[in-house]
């Protein structure tokens, strides 16, 4: 153990403690688990998007060598497990199809076999007789209710919910009287987080009758409670372990049918069952993202002062409403659609509909619909700037929420904790060399070349969230930490979070190290095991640093208070005469008389006098507010007129996520998020044709960028701490995915604006860009 005095480890670019096992190939992922007698589960899936199931013949399948059992929806229904409540509780989802299938690739039967090969052979041998039904492939057709998709529900309509926030009348009158107005339908296409590790699990009932459930879950405790409620197995008899996870991005929040089938199989057959989905199953049946058709209207004065914002969204939720939003927020945090701007009046509404597509909607680094909201406002601001003939940066600066207005009550009900939008944009404009770029652009435009500059000055809302507003399945969205310091000054911190690559084993240790003046190299972090970790709501929506980070800091401060008593005994002074300064306990006014936390820790076990022995504490943190990270992104693009190819020449991201725990980890999160934003803007879509066929069912058609397509990223920061967070941290994981798509699209539309192009929906494929140029040429020539 190192003895030198730690000079504080917050903000240090520490190398990650968890890397050595990954570098040596010793990571421990779900598919690495092999238990004696383990069976393999393969799911039979429907090629039809909407069809009655006339019959399921498992005779041939049972004859396939190695096949042990086959179960169908009817078997599950008999065991009371036919349907699964969805996470925010308004709807339910079939585990295996019962009576009919509602989306292509929906689960129809589960085959259990001795080997992977036998399971696949068995699945192929199951004969299902489908009677195709007419298909509803988009929310606008669904809205007409000509074909009712879910007769199982009381309300005989495809309309799932109407949600709205803001002042409808005030906004309508403000819009009506605004001298300048724009209105545009902006679609954020359906896409998919596609983590490199597909979802999967291993389920086993051990000798004690306890369910040992190893699963790719971003929220293991919520899984344990949900499974207890669904299966009736007492919660003490359920042990959920999320081992190392190969990327999540929200895809590993929902509970999938494959998990329930594995558990039922393990129970019925009495042998462990492993289910690992294929890439095709991942892309076609697990939680998709977005699919919001947003009609955006903004009003402004002639000088570009914003007067009002109205957004009406038609949302495609697929066959079941499995969007894992907090209970009171069916449209998640869409209310942040006013963005960084001071709108006097605003009104946002969302209507959601069922379609014959996979369920989901909340995933892909999206903070509960914040990506859709941020894209809508940042795209619409450029359209308004174009309408006003104003510089896009100037229009933004003119309408930013002023620094002195925080905490800022937004027109749609949020209280922004802090921000310095002008400073962040200033750093970006300066570093990108905005004036020089404008000059270059003017010269290029004179020569008919297409160069574009695009901005996105977003504000997002993360860290869900205060218990008075936020719960999932009724469980409030707090988070917790347990810290125990050992006699030699080493320690362990356990949290209810679950990293899927975000570096918690290092950043959590840095918070404890900072708060207690201990060496983070010797603070072990443990998460993901529901038998040992305190209850937490898991890692998604950039909530771990804002919520669990707060819990860790406050648990550490409780440890410090306990330690103060022992320190007072060691320093032979009263408790009130001891102060914590420069990472050690000092006698007030006599800094030379001090003891380090390491020394106090040893004393806590060996010389604690009348104090309670040991040194540990826990804290369940209910955050008073969410946090509001922001940023200023700038993209510079050049377009090849003949091939429609867009080359991203530069991309600068200036992020403000408050206090930074580890700059190396923050930079890594930003690179990763920008790459996802780039992929969404130019390459990614889960498309269904009018017959309900999924056209992007694997990596040959659902495109992930490689090292060659991915631009080089320039990053910078401003730091505006969150006033209410124990260490001022806001969380950053989602900002780049939230903020960057609009910057890319704004840059491309800016490049094409001389041709009269005003808006293009993502993804901006070569074909789409080329046809926009060609259509404009037909107009102008």
């Amino acid at each position: 153990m190192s003895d030198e005095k730690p000079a504080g480890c917050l903000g240090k670019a520490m190398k990650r403690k968890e890397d050595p096992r990954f570098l040596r190939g010793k990571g421990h992922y779900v598919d690495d688990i092999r238990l004696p007698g383990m069976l393999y589960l393969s799911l039979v899936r429907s090629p039809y998007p909407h069809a009655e199931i006339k019959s399921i013949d498992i005779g041939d399948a049972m004859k396939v060598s190695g096949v042990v059992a086959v179960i169908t929806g009817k078997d599950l229904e008999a065991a009371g497990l036919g349907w699964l409540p969805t996470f925010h509780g308004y709807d339910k989802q079939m585990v295996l199809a019962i009576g009919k299938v509602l989306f292509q690739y929906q689960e129809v039967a589960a085959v259990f076999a001795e080997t992977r090969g036998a399971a696949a052979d068995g699945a192929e041998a199951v004969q299902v007789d489908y009677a195709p039904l007419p298909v509803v492939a988009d929310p606008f057709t669904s809205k007409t209710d000509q074909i009712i998709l879910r007769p199982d529900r009381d309300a005989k309509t495809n309309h799932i919910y109407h949600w709205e926030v803001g002042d409808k009348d005030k906004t309508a009158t403000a819009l009506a009287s605004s001298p300048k107005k724009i209105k545009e339908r902006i679609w954020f296409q359906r896409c998919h987080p596609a983590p490199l590790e597909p979802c999967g699990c291993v389920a086993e009932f051990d000798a004690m009758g306890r369910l040992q459930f190893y699963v790719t879950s971003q929220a293991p405790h919520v899984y344990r409670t949900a499974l207890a409620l669904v299966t009736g197995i007492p919660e003490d008899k359920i042990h959920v372990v999320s081992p190392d996870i190969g990327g999540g991005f929200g895809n590993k929040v929902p509970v999938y049918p494959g998990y329930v089938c594995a558990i039922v199989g393990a129970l019925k057959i009495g042998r462990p069952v492993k289910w690992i989905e294929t890439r095709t199953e991942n892309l076609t049946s697990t939680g998709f993202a977005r699919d919001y058709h947003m009609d955006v209207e903004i009003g402004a004065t002639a000088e570009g002062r914003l007067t009002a914002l109205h957004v009406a969204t038609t949302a495609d939720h697929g066959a079941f409403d499995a969007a894992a939003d907090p209970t009171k927020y069916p449209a998640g945090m869409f209310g942040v659609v006013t963005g960084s701007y001071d709108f006097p009046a605003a009104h946002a509404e969302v209507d959601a509909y069922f379609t014959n597509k996979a369920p989901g909607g909340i995933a892909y680094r999206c903070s509960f619909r914040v990506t859709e909201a941020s894209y809508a406002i940042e795209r619409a601001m450029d359209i308004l700037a174009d309408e006003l003939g104003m510089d896009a940066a100037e229009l933004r600066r003119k309408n930013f929420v002023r620094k002195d207005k925080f905490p800022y009550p937004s027109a749609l009900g949020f209280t922004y904790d802090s921000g310095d939008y002008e400073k962040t944009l200033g750093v970006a404009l300066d570093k990108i060399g905005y004036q020089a770029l404008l000059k270059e652009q003017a010269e290029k435009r004179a020569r008919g070349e297409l160069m574009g500059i695009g901005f996105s000055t977003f504000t997002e809302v993360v860290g869900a969230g205060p218990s008075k507003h936020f719960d999932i399945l009724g469980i409030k969205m707090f988070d917790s930490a347990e810290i125990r310091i050992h006699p030699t000054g080493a320690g362990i911190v356990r949290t209810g979070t679950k990293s899927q690559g975000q570096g918690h084993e290092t950043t959590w240790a840095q918070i404890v190290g900072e708060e207690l003046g201990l060496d983070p190299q010797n603070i072990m972090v443990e998460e993901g095991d529901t038998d040992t970790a305190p209850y937490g709501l898991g890692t998604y929506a950039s909530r771990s640093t804002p919520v669990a980070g707060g819990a860790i800091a406050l648990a550490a401060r409780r440890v410090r208070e306990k330690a103060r008593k022992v320190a007072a005994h060691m320093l032979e002074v009263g408790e009130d005469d001891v102060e914590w300064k420069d990472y050690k306990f000092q006698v007030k006014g006599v800094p030379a008389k001090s003891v380090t936390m390491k020394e106090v820790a040893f004393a806590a076990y060996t010389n604690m006098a009348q104090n309670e022995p040991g040194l540990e504490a826990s804290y369940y943190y209910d955050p008073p507010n969410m946090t509001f990270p922001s940023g200023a992104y700038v993209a510079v693009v050049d377009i090849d007129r003949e091939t429609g190819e867009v080359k991203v020449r530069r991309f600068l991201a200036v992020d403000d996520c408050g206090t930074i725990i580890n700059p190396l980890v923050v930079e890594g999160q930003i690179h990763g998020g920008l790459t996802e934003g780039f992929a969404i803007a130019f390459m990614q879509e889960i498309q269904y044709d009018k017959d309900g066929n999924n056209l992007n069912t694997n990596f040959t058609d659902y495109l992930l960028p490689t090292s060659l397509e991915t631009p080089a990223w320039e990053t910078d920061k401003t730091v505006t701490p969150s006033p209410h967070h124990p260490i001022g941290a806001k969380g950053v994981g989602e900002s780049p995915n939230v903020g960057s798509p609009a910057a890319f699209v704004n840059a491309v539309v800016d490049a094409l604006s001389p041709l009269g192009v005003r808006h293009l929906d993502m993804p901006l494929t070569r074909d789409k860009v080329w046809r926009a140029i060609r259509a404009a040429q037909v107009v102008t020539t």
Partner: protein
Amino acid sequence: MNLQYSGEETITASADVVWAFVTDPEKIGRSLPEVLEVTVRDPTHVDAVVQVAVGPVRGKFKLKVELQPDASRRRIDMKVSGGGFGSAVDLTAGADVVAAGDATTLLKWSGQAIARGPVAAIGGRVLDAQAQKLIAQAFGNVRQQLSVTT
């Protein structure tokens, strides 16, 4: 994957002979290209197993054929639904039997196929060019078998 097809066959046989042929489930079943098994269920339903082989793609498709003859208009509609490779193909085809003088008949056909699942996703590029050939081959077989019998 949604594919449209059409074509024409000139058959040296009378319209009545052609009509009798195309409304016979056994004969239609036998006309399917590379057919392995034909099982007639009833006068308007026949099941068949066909071998599909294009480059690396090779395997069996189980087809259910439903005939909808309309004697008054001498038009026969067919609904073919098939499964294989964990995928599904639904084909609707219609053929008009038109007498063309001196004991020859024109068989004018058009069809639409929807392919679903891996066959469409992966084999889509294989399928389109191939499906046109398969359907043309089926109606070609009809012509061959008829010209033999007369």
